[in-house]
């Protein structure tokens, strides 16, 4: 009787711990999810990231390749990328060394390339705030319905993000030039 009772208590304790752990897990994942949902307006659609054709997924080459975390000049691949963004920046400030198909926030959270605005928003908080309400960046679509947003990287090449000068369209005809 006594033995059976103790066994029962042990089982109960294990079940309770497991249940508690599960609850904690669901709570954590749920809170993370709702955080994401809250931050963006409901009716929107974001353009896909402007990958160079064939470059994604990164794992097609990087799979099994050991991550060399040492800042160096790239010689075999990606030589065209000159980082003119953060002083003394390096690939793994944003790219995730262990799974290259993801980006990594400063707090260690892994995000998809489609959500890269979280990464940019880490430093450019005021711009991120304006982008979310629809002030920063281009909007197309419906003013009273579904809007199409662009990712930061659709306009700002992340390795050198300043906007490049473009050629203006022709000026209006001067009255003196009208025949």
């Amino acid at each position, binding site marked *: 009787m006594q033995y059976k009772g103790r066994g029962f208590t042990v089982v109960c304790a294990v079940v309770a711990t497991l249940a508690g752990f599960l609850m904690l897990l669901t709570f954590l994942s749920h809170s993370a999810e709702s955080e994401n949902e809250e931050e963006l307006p409901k009716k929107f659609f974001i353009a896909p990231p402007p990958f160079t054709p064939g470059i994604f997924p990164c794992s097609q080459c990087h799979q099994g390749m050991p991550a060399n975390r040492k800042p160096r000049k790239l010689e075999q691949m990606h030589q065209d990328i000159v980082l003119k963004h953060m002083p003394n920046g390096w690939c793994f400030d944003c790219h995730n060394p262990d799974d290259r198909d993801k980006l990594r926030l400063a707090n260690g959270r892994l995000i998809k390339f489609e959500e890269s605005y979280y990464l940019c928003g880490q430093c450019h908080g005021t711009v991120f705030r304006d982008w979310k309400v*629809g002030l920063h960046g281009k909007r197309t679509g*419906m003013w009273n319905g579904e809007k199409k947003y662009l990712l930061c990287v659709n306009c700002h090449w992340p390795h050198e993000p300043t906007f490049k*000068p473009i050629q*203006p*369209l022709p*000026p209006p005809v001067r009255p003196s030039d009208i025949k």
Partner: protein
Amino acid sequence: MKREKKNRRELSLGRRTFLKGAALGLAATALPFNKADASFWEAFFQKRFHEMNDAEKKQVIERLEREAEQKYKKAIKIGNEKAIPGVLFGYGLDLSRCIGCRRCVYACVEENNQSKDPQIHWITVLRFRKGEKWVDLEGSEKYYNPPMVPEKDYFYMPVQCQQCENPPCVRACPTQATWKEPDGIVVVDYNWCIGCRYCMAACPYGARHFNWSEPGRKPEEINPNTHYLGNRPRFRGVVEKCTFCIQRTRNGRYPACVEACPVGARKFGNLLDPASEMRYLIEHKRVFRLKEELNTNPKFYYFFAYGR
């Protein structure tokens, strides 16, 4: 005696009938009976746009569509969407982002069927040197043409119709051919405009433009999705202006210039909706309106997103 009087009356009557007949005859020669189809007389007796009922509007629009099709040899849809209740359109332009590339100017021309020769642009982009007094617009340059924009030490300000709540052009019009719609867009009825250009003189923003000759545009360049009060084909001798792309915005779409801007400097929304981006920018950014001191109360807000 009596007989004589009668004779005189006959004589004078004869003169009057002669004059009447002559006048009628003259009128008949003046009126072009050779093109006296129903269309001509319908156009001649067309009422003012807001005096027409829906059936009459439909009839007028059908006739205009028919005429436009004959002229341009392609089907042109002339819409008549009414203002959406509870909507007052407002426009925002971020001067800290505009790079003066004039993409908006030409997107507007494509969308709104302006004449290409002679050239009509509804948007004028002004260039100013940084650090100089500029807000009176006197030192502005609109013919700038560098190889690349933005240029160092310059900034740019596109100007178009400011869609004033208190529009001086509307008051100047002697025929009431221009008016403010319930959603705040100032429109022109091109069939009622007599081309006196008083509104152009009254507008402090230079936003109204005149068709000095028959609008020059190739049929294949005509945008067939039009609105009666907006981008439908115009005639020689009428005034035209920006309508916030009434044919798009009344169907929920953004104006063409908003979608063309490569830097996203142009914002558009409903001023009566507290959740709209227009309300956010007015409440959170440094905002000014052009020539505010004239009490025109524009709904076109220039703002600076950089800095606060």
